[in-house]
């Protein structure tokens, strides 16, 4: 029998608000342990949680970016469980009345066709403290760091509609792109600001039954999620073939050994309405305000780039894929660079160079002004593309403009016909056999001759002119 997998994801996204969810402590979990704490997030007796307005706004923006229906009324519940990372015995979460329901994101499936994946709901919840287990000593010790306690999360819960690890990975990337666009969250699985648990079950292909699921945790990258799901599907199919029952439990992904191992029975504690945090009632006016402060999202942006800048679809998708990138691209265009030229140079030269230098658009010293200056010199024929690549490389180490660097390092393109004729003359007399080949009809050897001339000019010659001059001299 052929099996298919039923995959649902639960994704926790840490919002980047200035404060924690229910108190004024800084939302910086990475600081020295227990430095961003107060009686509220330590849950000392008598302290009361007060929901941060900024957190509510950022959570709402996140939901809007995922095409959700924001609920006019939502509320916090107490998810009751006892564990040292949660010293008040319950986590404030939204179990019964989430902030948003439904919603979808679009991915491309393995055949390249667009596919909409639906969300069940999105809710807010506070994070718990971080436990650090020191097992080295004679007596193992667990330390608790409360910097993370009470930091704001939204949890995205999907419908169980994904069928392959590929779907799941694309889904995660799509969620990440959409949410990053709003500027409300960093969404990095590597640094833990986005975390993903997967629920997986299998069934005979083509049926619509929902069988007992297994939850997997501890995947620290999009690829881990794909690998873990693929492993788990195989494991379950094998179990079913061996007539072993699938039981509801939680497994951990081991990225070193590439296996999942059983951790514990899946725990579902009670959830009761929290009596202290008031019900959140959102007015239409407020929601309208939120919608209007939402930035232009990637799909709108792609359409506009195609329409306004005559980019082809794939170029527009690439330029629109990240908010910072799209802003960089538009700034360069607004500074007078032809749009497709800008997109081409950004895609093929600038982004790979950034990656090579380990920089990002956020921290690089290459501003749109400097980059536009460079491309304009190419457009005008002041430098050729080889020199432009060299200037781009120099950009990483200095703050000079393209003009300055070109002058300083003598990158200006040689378009002076007299000078080029001299160089070409020398190349033709030095490479008699190539000239013979060309004359005998091997037109390709002109490439070799142009290369030699470029080399002789130390890369500065205008290659189009050189080719023309060679053709003229050999005609």
């Amino acid at each position, binding site marked *: 029998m052929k099996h298919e997998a039923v995959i649902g994801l639960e994704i926790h996204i840490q919002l980047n608000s200035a404060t924690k969810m229910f108190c004024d402590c800084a939302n910086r979990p990475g600081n020295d342990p227990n430095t961003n704490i107060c*009686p509220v997030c*330590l*849950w*000392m*007796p*008598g*302290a*009361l*949680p*007060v*929901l941060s307005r900024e957190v509510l706004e950022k959570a709402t923006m996140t939901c809007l970016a995922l095409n959700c229906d924001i609920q006019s009324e939502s509320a916090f519940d*107490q998810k*009751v469980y*006892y564990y*040292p990372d949660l*010293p*008040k*015995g*319950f986590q404030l979460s939204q179990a019964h009345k989430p902030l948003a329901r439904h919603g979808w994101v679009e991915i491309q499936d393995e055949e390249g066709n667009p596919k909409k994946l639906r969300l069940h709901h999105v809710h807010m919840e506070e994070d718990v403290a971080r436990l650090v287990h020191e097992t080295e000593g004679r007596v193992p010790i*667990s330390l608790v760091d409360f910097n993370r306690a009470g930091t704001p999360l939204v949890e995205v819960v999907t419908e169980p509609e994904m069928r392959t690890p590929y779907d799941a990975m694309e889904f995660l990337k799509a969620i990440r792109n959409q949410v990053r666009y709003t500027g409300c969250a960093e969404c990095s699985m590597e640094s833990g600001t986005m975390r993903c648990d997967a629920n997986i079950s299998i069934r005979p292909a083509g049926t619509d039954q929902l069988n007992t699921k297994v939850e997997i945790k501890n995947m620290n990258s999009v690829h881990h999620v794909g690998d873990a799901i693929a492993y788990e599907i195989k494991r379950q199919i094998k179990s079913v073939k061996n007539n072993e029952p699938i039981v509801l439990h939680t497994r951990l992904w081991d990225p070193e050994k590439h296996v999942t191992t059983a951790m514990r029975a899946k725990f579902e504690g*009670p959830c*009761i*309405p929290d*009596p*202290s*945090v*008031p019900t959140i009632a959102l007015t239409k006016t407020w929601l309208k305000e939120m919608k209007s402060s939402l930035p232009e999202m990637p799909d709108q942006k792609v359409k506009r780039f195609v329409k306004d800048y005559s980019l082809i679809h794939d170029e527009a998708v690439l330029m629109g894929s990240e908010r910072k990138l799209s802003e960089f691209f538009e700034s360069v265009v607004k500074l007078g660079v032809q749009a497709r030229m800008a997109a081409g140079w950004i895609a093929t030269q600038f982004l790979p160079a950034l990656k090579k230098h380990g920089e990002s658009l956020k921290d690089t010293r290459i501003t749109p002004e400097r980059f536009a200056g460079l491309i304009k010199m190419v457009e005008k024929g002041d430098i050729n593309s080889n020199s432009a690549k060299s200037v781009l490389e120099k950009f990483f180490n200095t703050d000079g403009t393209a003009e300055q660097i070109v002058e300083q390092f003598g990158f200006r393109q040689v378009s002076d016909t007299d000078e080029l004729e001299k160089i070409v003359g020398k190349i033709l007399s030095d490479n008699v056999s190539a000239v013979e080949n060309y004359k005998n009809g091997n037109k390709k050897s002109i490439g070799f001759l142009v290369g030699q001339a470029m080399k002789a000019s130390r890369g500065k010659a205008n290659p189009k002119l050189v080719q023309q001059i060679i053709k003229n001299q050999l005609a």
Partner: protein
Amino acid sequence: MESKIFNYLSISTQPGIKGPMTGTDVAVESNISVADWPTDAYSPALENYSALEDATLVQRLRNAGAALKGQTYMGEFGLGLNNDTCGEAIKRGLSHAVLKIDTTGEARMAAAISGCFGFKPSYGLISRFGLIGLVPSMESCGILSSSLETISKAVFSMAGGDDTDPSMNQSGIDRAVEEFQHQDKFHDRPLTVGVVKDCCKAMDLNESKGFEQAVARLGKAGIQVKQIDIKDFALARTVHNVIGTVEASSSAGRFDSVRYGHRTGASVKSWNDMYIKSRGESFGPLVKAYLFQGGYFQYRNYNAFLDACRVRARLMEDMEKALETMDMILLPVSENSGVTLKKPDTVSDFYDTFSLTLIANLTGNPSITIPGPVRKNNAGPALQLIGKRFGDAGLLALAARIFDIHTGEI
């Protein structure tokens, strides 16, 4: 003598601030935070815990000139009246006012028994920041005093919005504060009082007779008495029981014995074992029973909790509707004459004591008990008034008139 009434006495009671409360001594119980005072809610679960800062309402009393006297004795987490000395402190003139968290009617009942006034303000009028209670949605800071004027001044001083308490109701607060400045308008206007049909059903014959006589006296004094029907009145006790225990079970989760409070001396195998043993040794039998019931509804019978929430919402609506056409509702304080300071053994005993006061905690209305001719440890002759939400000032003004009639001064 004082050491039998006070569990803790302040070293310096002089606040040095001139204000409406200057010259007024106020005592609290040890579940109301006063910075650096031992604040253990009379439970080993908070053993040796000192409050980090003042409760907002304590800060406001200080600013109004009140002198903080000390702490009177209380039962564990204020559950029941066992061990209480707040009423005695008033009766003996050792403090002008005592603050006591009122979750089921504790402050009002203690006052009724000892022959003074006991007031529970509207929910959302006075900040709960710094109160260590078990049932957040029902608790308010109650006040005992033999002077209605002192109660009025204290409530007015403590009332007001507070960014650290999300359950405050700003528009209600504005209305209430406004009314405190015009309390005299209640002095001689015609009054209508509602009496809940069937409220005497379960009462001792003696008690119900006493209540009927009290109602008759009001009628004779020219107050219009109307019968009202609050459909779910008889369910209030059960509703409070279900919601109260559920909230308590969650609230008590934070008493984990790690950062403060009693920690077991027994050898333990794991952190979970440590929690269980420490909590088992900390909580007394009544608190345990109360928390167990909450755990039952949380884990095993959530639907009962949902039903209770629905009935509570209906009770709130009915109460509000009834109070649209009258000034206040009149109720006995207790169903039976046997209410004393004795320790309740079971949750059911506990609710027996407060069956008629708890409705104001469920609905969030202000409520006051006014003493009758004093009988030892007996709430019987006292009356309970329930006012409109945020009509605290009016209720306190009217309580003075009802008191005069009730005690035969008019």
